[in-house]
């Protein structure tokens, strides 16, 4: 720029430029625009960083410092609020089939996928995969049987999502459970310590 900004306004100008850019801007470019060397621009930005990044900062933004460039972004901890505000919240609810698989795992863990399939009468690989992605179930061991199939159990996130402290607090399933086929994991000896299914 032809005109130099008063010193106290260069930081504001940097903020405006980084906001409008969205992507990283090099110190070289910032310096050229503000009448500074790239090194001076870098110092200026480093000086600004604590007001965004320090623990006590009241800001919702984070100033990222790269080797040659810098960028403004939102603080990680506000991501859930942003997602909700912008409507980016898919996959929050569990489908009926996911709930069925989850119930079978929760009440009978550890269980194999073959067992889940047998109980539901359908292939459940997709739901099992989704639940693993969502970190509600995980592989907790292997069944000591041909092919050494994976055994699934619930996670701590599962407890959190359902608002219970332990599996003992699961609602009483009662007679529902008695009609289920025998769980192979409870018949055959496994190499898995069946006592704990925590993360």
């Amino acid at each position, binding site marked *: 720029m032809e005109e130099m900004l008063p010193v106290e306004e260069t930081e504001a100008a940097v903020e405006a430029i980084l906001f409008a850019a969205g992507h990283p801007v090099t110190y070289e470019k910032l310096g050229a625009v503000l009448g500074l060397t790239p090194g001076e621009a870098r110092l200026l930005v480093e000086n600004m960083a604590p007001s965004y990044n320090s623990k006590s900062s009241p800001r919702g933004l984070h100033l990222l410092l790269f080797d040659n460039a810098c960028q403004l972004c939102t603080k990680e901890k506000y*991501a859930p609020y942003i997602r909700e505000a912008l409507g*980016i919240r898919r996959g929050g*609810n569990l489908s009926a*089939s996911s709930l069925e698989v989850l*119930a*079978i795992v929760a009440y009978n863990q550890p269980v194999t996928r073959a067992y889940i399939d047998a109980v539901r009468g*359908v*292939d459940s690989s997709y739901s099992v995969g989704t639940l693993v992605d969502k970190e509600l179930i995980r592989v907790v061991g292997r069944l000591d049987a041909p092919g050494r199939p994976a055994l699934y159990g619930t996670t701590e996130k599962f407890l959190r999502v359902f*608002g*219970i402290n332990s599996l003992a607090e699961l609602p009483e399933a009662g007679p529902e459970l008695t009609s289920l086929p025998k769980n192979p994991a409870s018949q055959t000896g496994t190499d898995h310590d069946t006592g704990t299914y925590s993360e």
Partner: protein
Amino acid sequence: MGALMYRLDRFEGPLDLLLSLINKNKVNIEDIPISLICSQYLEYISGAEAMNMEIASEFLVMASELMLIKSRMLLPRPEPPEEDPRRELADALKRYREAKAAAQRLAERYSIFSGRMVKDTDEISVDKTFVADHDPELLRIAMRRISAYMEAVEEASQAFTPMLGRRVVPVGAKIESILEQMQKSGRSTLRELIANEATRQDVITAFIAILELIRIHRLLIDEDISEGEDSGTVHGLDTVFILNTDESTVLSDERIAHEVY
């Protein structure tokens, strides 16, 4: 004429040209000397025409309107006096002049505040691991759903052998009952459609009926997976069927009658 240029493209329209003539002659918009303004207007139009400028039709319409007003001004006024023939034109000119002035004030603000820049919405990745809070009761309900279904299957397999004495429901009748069910619900999963079938034979009959309804396009498989992460599967008992209400795409019922009944 000399250097006088008749540039119609300098004006936004006939009202703009008229305003400039009114300003040049320093006359009152409420009391326009219509014959003076009309002749200057016509002179400008013909001047522009002589310079091979394209004359937009609006300018010609205004010319004839001005001449009409002028002629009405020449007529003796009736008693009681009717409205001034220039009234409507004066109102239009005043309103247009104000619009121009407002546009000018907006332009000044725009030159300053168009510098207020915004950014694009951040691309935020969809969090596949996000799970909303759920009531644990849902798990018990899911269990009950599974066991109820399993009992039905067991019953069906037990009932298979002594089936001989049972009344066999024809496929045609099954088609009707499925259509009835679909008309009520609009959409159903395979699980729901066969939920009430007591024996394996009944399940098979229902299944043949569903296949037939799909063949004639009366039932459609819903492949819309946009709603939830694993709804609308096209596999197994969760397959969702919807009723095709577009009659033109459904094969005729006669053929079913021949082939199935």
